[in-house]
């Protein structure tokens, strides 16, 4: 290993201030004699100074309180003894497939006569709030879709195929959940599925626009 390579290995700890005294002296002597390593050290030092100067607070691009408040509202039955289970939207295609299947199953349940036992779950959101949440999601999806369309042609064909296939599955889940809700009226399980489907779509679009 050359001197410069060895110093390169020690440079991280040197700049972090965690290098032992003997090694620190060696690094400092080398930096005085080697302009290339000195430049590299200076660049890194500036990078770390810039990183430490980054703002510690960044306002979210939209007010997230409404979504938090809605979830806290859903929490209330859980605090009085019922267990609340939140569906996470991160399985992408696999989750979307599950959503389609579960949504279909719930729709079948709802299609049965009213004498059937009601589905488990907390209280459904009120119609105005449902509409507001749905509109929020739809607006966010439209925004990301517009960004995604701009990137679409620059994606490799295999990536386009994966993303398009997953979007189609999620769109099916959204359409089925919306249709079931339109037929059944307010229903917490269907709403949970619909929000999860929207979040899966936002998640996928968000990542696709960064590719």
């Amino acid at each position, binding site marked *: 290993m050359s001197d410069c390579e060895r110093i390169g290995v020690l440079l991280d700890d040197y700049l972090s201030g965690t290098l032992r005294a003997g090694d620190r002296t060696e690094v400092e002597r080398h930096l005085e004699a080697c302009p290339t390593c000195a430049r590299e050290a200076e660049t890194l030092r500036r990078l770390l100074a810039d990183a430490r100067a980054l703002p510690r607070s960044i306002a979210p691009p939209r007010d997230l309180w409404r979504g938090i408040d809605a979830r806290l509202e859903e929490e209330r039955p859980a605090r009085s003894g019922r267990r609340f289970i939140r569906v996470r939207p991160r399985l992408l295609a696999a989750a979307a497939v599950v959503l389609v299947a579960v949504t279909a199953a719930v729709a079948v349940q709802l299609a049965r006569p009213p004498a059937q036992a009601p589905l488990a779950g907390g209280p459904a959101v009120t119609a105005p709030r449902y509409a507001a949440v749905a509109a929020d999601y739809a607006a966010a999806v439209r925004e990301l879709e517009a960004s995604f369309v701009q990137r679409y042609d620059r994606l490799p064909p295999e990536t386009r195929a994966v993303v398009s296939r997953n979007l189609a599955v999620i769109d099916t889940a959204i359409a089925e959940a919306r249709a079931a809700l339109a037929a059944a009226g307010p229903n917490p399980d269907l709403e949970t599925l619909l929000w999860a489907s929207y979040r899966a779509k936002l998640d996928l679009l968000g990542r*696709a626009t960064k590719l």
Partner: protein
Amino acid sequence: MSNPALSFPPHAFSGRRAVPVPRVTDAVARAAAGDRAAFETLYREHAGRVYALCLRLAGDTTRAEEYTQDVFVRAWQRLASFRGDAAFSSWLHRLAVNVVLQDRRAERRRLRRVEPTDDLGSAPAPRDRIAARLDLETAIAALPDAARQVFVLYDIEGYGHAEIGRLLGIAEGTSKAHLHRARRLLREALER
């Protein structure tokens, strides 16, 4: 090993050089008793700090929003266990780190089993797809997951390698290797 390069105490969420003062503020006490308006006050006060942390750890605005909401929901659920041994801001900071990292770990496990899509998202963007002028935040967001998380925790948040190793479930040496890689990638990205 701690991180002496930063002059502020790790996890000091209320300011880089501010020393957290153990206290249970009135708003925290009221929120812990179930007062949602008081909890909204806490959200308004801390949302920016939590969002910034989530954004940098996740490297993705959509996820950062979702994680921020998760953090506050989790905080609401656990407020009763907050004893005021540390500042609320420090407690919330730790909670946020755990929420994000636990989810990223779980997601990696899930995606190993079912779906390759995440690899597309977490892979470093090819050179020609990165805008010509990268700012530091953009460059950090483009880092591979592990390198980004270690860089954010070590160089921005002031955690030590031993603690990062525990949080990420990796060896201390691996944390150092990720940091080295992150710094190198950032330097290269910003020099383009």
